[in-house]
């Protein structure tokens, strides 16, 4: 049997440290070799004890978990960092990854989740909370696909205006048809052009038709 994984646990709340140790109790694969109450103490203990994994809370006095992770990554890159936190925001996850953490666990994680994550990290894999990382991923894909998002951005009124632009109507005529002032119609048209990323009204009309936002008027398009 291999020797147990040596863990360092840093959290300013005694109750959570005790809880975490109780969670692992009876499992021969893990051993908590040190406990720290802040990030600085965690760094000192890592230097002295050389654990396999440092489990760090984010919100700690003196030096927070992200700061400790960053320093640890530089000084002792062999020690794997797992963040153990209440914060479930993708931004904290992103910051944790940026600070060199390979694991991200929430404090309501189940025992299986914790054990599985620690084993995976020990094997050199990553173990990031799946729902938080899913949210981070969704944001990133959205940033990449903002072009498609813009198409959906048109309001009902703006789609109406786009239809009339595609029909070749002037701002004045659009205003008359919709019962709004020509100035208002002009503002609508400009906003539609902006949202479609078009250079002018003709390009907006072409894009609108190409994207199926406008029904092609049969009679006018040979």
């Amino acid at each position: 049997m291999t020797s147990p994984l040596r863990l360092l646990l840093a959290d300013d709340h005694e109750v959570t440290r005790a809880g975490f140790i109780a969670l692992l109790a009876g499992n021969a694969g893990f051993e908590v070799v040190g406990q720290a109450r802040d990030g600085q103490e965690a760094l000192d203990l890592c230097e002295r004890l050389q654990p396999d994994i440092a489990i760090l809370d984010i919100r700690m006095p003196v030096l927070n978990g992200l700061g400790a992770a960053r320093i640890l990554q530089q000084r002792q890159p062999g020690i794997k960092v797992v963040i153990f936190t209440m914060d479930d925001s993708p931004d904290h996850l992103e910051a944790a990854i940026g600070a060199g953490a390979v694991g991200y666990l929430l404090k309501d994680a189940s025992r299986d989740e914790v054990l599985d994550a620690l084993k995976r990290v020990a094997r050199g894999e990553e173990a990031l909370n799946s729902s938080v990382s899913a949210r981070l991923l969704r944001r990133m894909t959205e940033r990449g696909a903002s072009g498609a998002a813009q198409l959906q951005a048109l309001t009902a009124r703006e789609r109406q205006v786009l239809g009339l632009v595609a029909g070749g109507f002037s701002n004045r005529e659009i205003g008359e048809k919709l019962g709004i002032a020509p100035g208002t119609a002009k503002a609508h048209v400009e906003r539609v052009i902006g949202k479609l990323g078009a250079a002018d009204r003709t390009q907006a009309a072409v894009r609108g038709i190409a994207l199926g936002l406008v029904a092609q008027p049969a009679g006018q398009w040979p």
Partner: protein
Amino acid sequence: MQSPPPDPGSALAIRSQYRQSQSRAARLGLLLGTGHELTRLPLAQLRQRVVQRACAFVAMDHGLLLEWTPDQPASALACHGSGERLDWLARLADSPVPGPQWLEYPDSPLPQVLRVPLRAADGTVFGVLLLGNSVVISAPDNEDIESLQLLTTLLAAHLENHRLLEALQARERTMSELVHRLFTAQEDERKRVAYDLHDGLAQNLAGLHQRLQGFAGRCPALPPDLANELQTILALAQGCVGEGRQLIGGLRPHVLDDFGLYKAVDKEADRLREAGLTVDWVEHSSARLPGNTEIALFRIAQEGINNILKHARACHVSLGLSISDDRAALRVEDNGRGFALEQPIETNGTRHLGLAAMQERAILLGGQLTCLSEPGDGTRLLASVPLTIHGAHP
């Protein structure tokens, strides 16, 4: 020889008509001139002008304007003439008579006095215009006295308006200060509760959940019903930790304190994404702002996002955060069904109240909030606040 019959064209009649029209012109001039000055002159100058005009109009050489309030005794706010005689005139301020009076005091420093009270719209007398003469002249006619009364009525109405306006402005300032304190107290309290929850209850719950799990892991095999019960307890404990976390996030998002406004608003936008809306940032900045600005703009964005989820029926939301040296502007736009801004409040009371609260938050920072919407044309919310001056309440 008979004297000639009175001729309407005679020199005497013409002179009399000329005098009459001259005095009419003088009366009209008095009122028009004063009316003109009402809105142009500051109050102190206006009072002085009224006293001078009144003296000139009835050819009297002393004038005194006294005003008082229920809590303050009469004080002289404008005068014309020599000091000792004015002191004597001031003694005539009190009188039970509500209208103008012509008084004669032979052998006194001012043998002739005209007393015209200043009355508020509700009839209470709050001042008096006293005119006195050191030489005896013929008493002014009734029309002249009426003109003087009209003059004091004009002045009284203007002074009363001014007083009401000042009271209203003072009230507005008090209200604004109270709202500011309310917002600050609310945010401080939320922050305190959030941090207390995080450090206390939430950690205890997390510890409890972990210990329960450790206990369940080491427990010898339980009969099926007890094993089921233990699983239920575990799920419940886990749920409590999750709920605590959500509660803390709702009270005071750590993201705001740790990463600033852009990330915090983006996390709020996750609620839109989870509801199936697409979100794009047209522009953003990660620059940090003063704490009160960040929290105010965050609450505005939060309320805007709440409104979109509750009312807008939108499928896309555009967000923008631009920060320059002297200004931060937050933009929240949806492509939903919009609403008529001029709709009476009762049809959508809470929403309008929310809008008013957003507006108040922006105004307290010395900024402004505009909301543009039309049925079928989405809603555009723009909050813009200055950064060099940190609001009206540093």
